[in-house]
């Protein structure tokens, strides 16, 4: 068996989902190929952290913290609501002004034709390009995007 074929099967081999024969074939290769053996060991360690992370021991009082946070948010909402009530006259005035501006703009656009063309996806690309200054490990995972199977 070739190394590349082994690479595709390693994760299934490690999780024990291969058939007997497939599993034996992988094992046989690993025993004769140092490099694949090294990969297999590394992969086992990395994936092993899933089992470690699965062991959750919840901080005592977690539910209390959630309930305290809930009470806090409900209080804030009540405050915000009364604030909005008090500011109603000002907000109404602001809405009238905004509406007038909107109508004005729409009319202006209709007469000038086209209006501003916002390029879709520009924002996203911009963010993406900005991430290039990240450290090498992050770069590594960002720049290899194309080589992988999509949904």
């Amino acid at each position, binding site marked *: 068996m070739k190394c590349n074929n082994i690479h595709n099967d390693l994760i299934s081999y490690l999780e024990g989902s291969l058939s007997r024969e497939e599993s034996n074939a992988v094992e046989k290769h690993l025993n004769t190929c140092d490099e694949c053996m090294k990969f297999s060991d590394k992969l086992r360690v*990395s*994936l092993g952290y899933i089992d470690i*992370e699965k062991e959750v021991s919840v901080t005592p009082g977690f539910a209390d913290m959630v309930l305290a*946070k809930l009470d806090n948010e409900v209080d804030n909402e009540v405050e915000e609501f009364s604030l909005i009530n008090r500011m109603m006259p000002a907000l109404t005035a602001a809405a009238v002004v905004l509406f007038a501006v909107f109508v004005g703009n729409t009319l202006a656009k209709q007469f000038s034709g086209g209006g501003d063309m916002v390029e879709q996806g520009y924002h996203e690309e911009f963010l993406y390009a900005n991430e290039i200054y990240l450290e090498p490990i992050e770069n590594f*995972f960002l720049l290899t995007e194309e080589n992988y199977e999509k949904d």
Partner: protein
Amino acid sequence: MTQFVSNQNDHDLISAIKDGDHDSFRILVEKYQERVIRICRGYLGSYEDAEDLAQEVFIEVYKSSVKFREQSEVSTWLYRIAVNRSLNYIRDNRKKFILSKRSDSYEMSAIENKASGSSADNEITAGEHRHVLHLALNSLSDNQKTAFILNKYEDLPYIEISSIMGVSISSVESLLFRAKRNLQKRLLDYYNKNML
């Protein structure tokens, strides 16, 4: 039978929560806290971040309980909120998330190196293994990542994953297949460039 009883309880809890009953809410939190934290941890890696996010998940559960429709399982609905919150968290904090996780893992690897004596230059440290695992996981598409986390962190059967994600069982199977392929490809590429 027990399944029926426990589901019945869940629906009773939600009706009480809809009426603002905090005691029922506490029971629901205590029943599902581990599961929700585990899901969040699958996405975020850091335990502290996962607990913080899990708090938000439960707050959202409380607030949106009025919208909960009795036809679906409470657990399915809860999982769905945890998944969406986690995906949004990563999207919103992409930069901060990656950077803070890196410094975490550097600290962690420094500590673990001290504990284990020393390690050779080309050895990948414990903290790095963990960090690389989450970077590789987060480089998967949202759907692949979600199928993988629900299956591997939460040990959920395909049928439950399919109702949480709203896709067919065969889609879950193929998402998992591609998730594993991509994950191992990314990890092997990483080892290849960093240990040889």
